């Protein structure tokens, strides 16, 4: 990975607690993070040599900053509840799954199921995301600078998925109340997902998300909005061919 700019944690702290996964186990890392209590001085963490490890910094529930130097495996930052986690590399499947609050930034690409079932917080993927991005999302905001793969936002219940690039096949299949904003091309829409009008409140919402995600040079008006047609919310036999 090329050198990346300093994260907020680095700017704020000047120094961070460094945890080298080539010297210590994953268990030791997560245990140390879980022992943090409100008001702890250890507000900035740096994780070295993740080398594709799974479950890096899962279940953190304090508002600390964690910079992971390198690429991670499955479920990095899973169930994050308040931490600001930056991966200076790419992330494997299920990054930020079931996030409650806080933020996750992936400097590289993300594999499948990014932000799956997330309930809150902000997930930013500066590269591309693979299939099933935002699957079953329940309130999370996801901003992808690049493209997303097929079946993204499948059964998405709530929250916002913003895609600066293109979306793959079957976007928003069986979607509930989540909002999808795509700037590029959508390969196809899934069952019960339709293009919707961008009203002023959506432009405002989207602009806020772009600002939060640090996206510059892109206007909210360049996006199209997609969401549920709400035709499959109550079973009707005459809709059977939609399934």
């Amino acid at each position, binding site marked *: 990975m090329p050198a990346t700019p300093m994260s907020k944690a680095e700017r704020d702290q000047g120094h961070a607690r460094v945890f080298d996964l080539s010297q210590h186990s994953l268990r030791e890392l997560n245990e140390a993070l879980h022992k943090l209590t409100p008001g702890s001085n250890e507000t900035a963490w740096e994780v070295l040599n993740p080398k594709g490890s799974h479950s890096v910094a899962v279940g953190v529930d304090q508002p600390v900053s964690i910079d992971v130097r390198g690429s991670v495996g499955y479920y990095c930052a899973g169930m994050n509840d308040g931490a600001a986690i930056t991966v200076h590399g790419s992330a494997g499947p299920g990054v930020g799954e079931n996030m409650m609050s806080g933020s996750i930034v992936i400097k590289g690409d993300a594999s*499948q199921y990014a932000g799956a079932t997330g309930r809150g917080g902000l997930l930013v993927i500066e590269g591309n995301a693979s299939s099933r991005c935002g699957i*079953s999302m329940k309130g999370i905001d996801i901003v992808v600078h690049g493209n997303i793969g097929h079946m993204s936002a499948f059964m998405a219940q709530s929250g916002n998925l913003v895609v600066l690039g293109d979306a793959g096949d079957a976007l928003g299949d069986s979607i509930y109340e989540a909002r999808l904003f795509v700037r590029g091309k959508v390969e196809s829409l899934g069952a019960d997902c339709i293009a919707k009008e961008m009203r002023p409140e959506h432009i405002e919402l989207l602009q806020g998300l772009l600002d939060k995600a640090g996206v510059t040079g892109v206007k909210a008006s360049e996006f199209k909005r997609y969401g549920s047609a709400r035709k499959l919310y109550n079973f009707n036999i005459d809709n059977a061919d939609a399934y």
Partner: protein
Amino acid sequence: MAYHNPPTTPRKSATFDDYTLSEIRRAAATGIYDIRGAGAKRKLPHFDDLLFLGASISRYPLEGYRERCDTSVVLGSRHAKKPIELKIPITIAGMSFGSLSGPAKEALGRGATIAGTSTTTGDGGMTEEERGHSKTLVYQYLPSRYGMNPRDLRRADAIEVVVGQGAKPGGGGMLLGQKISDRVAEMRTLPKGIDQRSASRHPDWTGPDDLEIKILELREITDWEKPIYVKVGGARPYYDTALAVKAGADVVVIDGMQGGTAATQEVFIENVGQPTLACIRPAVQALQDLGMHRKVQLIISGGIRNGADVAKALALGVDAVSIGTAALVALGDNDPRWEAEYNALGTTAGAYDDWHEGRDPAGITTQDPELMKRVDPIAAGRRLANYLKVMTLEAQTIARACGKNSLHNLEPEDLVALTIEAAAMAGVPLAGTNWIPGKNGF
């Protein structure tokens, strides 16, 4: 004298029986498949087809009411720092808040706690009613992830990764709009009143290799404290058990096709999956082949009704059983006291299974505030505790008669089968013979 033609007795088809005819007419009239609660209702090989031998000249019994017969069980001793210790090997299966009313969930917690066993959340998240009233609570990790959050994961006593259930291996949940109250909608992050379909696949893992990584994540989040169960429907018990063990499970839960559901298609319930009896020996065999029998515990569910069923399941090698339907009956489900109201719904006490419609006269499978008042959680919890104690006493009675000072010392050699099918499934001899179908090439 004119020849008199004697009439033949009108004969109905065994193939097109009354139920089948009614179902064809219902489908033709409505254009929708039949959805109902509960498990398979068809006649299946079951524990009734097995008998204990008891003591004889070569086996001596223990004294009833005198000699101790241990009923306790420890679940999750493989990896968890805090395994679960239960006084009895009968647990309460996962049933969702949403499907069940708040008072019913509270009653399950109260009853289980009095009896010294665990209860389980369901596809709807953890409620304060059940956490507050359950000493030992198993938190289900389901494909829908409704209500899932790290705080509840950490205040659970064990985590059950649900891959499937016996009534519908391969099917997701279903909760029709009429049961999606404000509270249920909020817990599931869905609009009120819509039909809610839980996913059938987990959103962020597929297959046994991913499951291993998912279990690692759950262990890391909970600091390796909680036992992790993996629950599957009775589909491929040998391979599912082996793969769950490989993925790192502490406990494997297998739910046969008699296991209940809140709501699924009738055609699914009756035609997919295997009977409970057929699932036990392959699962035990998988554990034995891996050297993990009694190290990874096995829980079986689906149609457990009394202490004899418990004893038979344990004799076949399981560590504990789980009950759902029977627990609801103990709370008051399908009670004949509500017969007039069952009749008004077009059914009768004992047959009521439209649990998804939310109009349960017994106040259990409903979100109607008036109906749910009919469940007094304290009294219903007491009934459940009584029932669990009776089942335990019954199982002990049988175990003592077989000379066992622990329910877990019961063994297949204590059993015979009444039918060839049951003999083959249970791997015990047909009564009066030494023939175990399928063994020794016959």
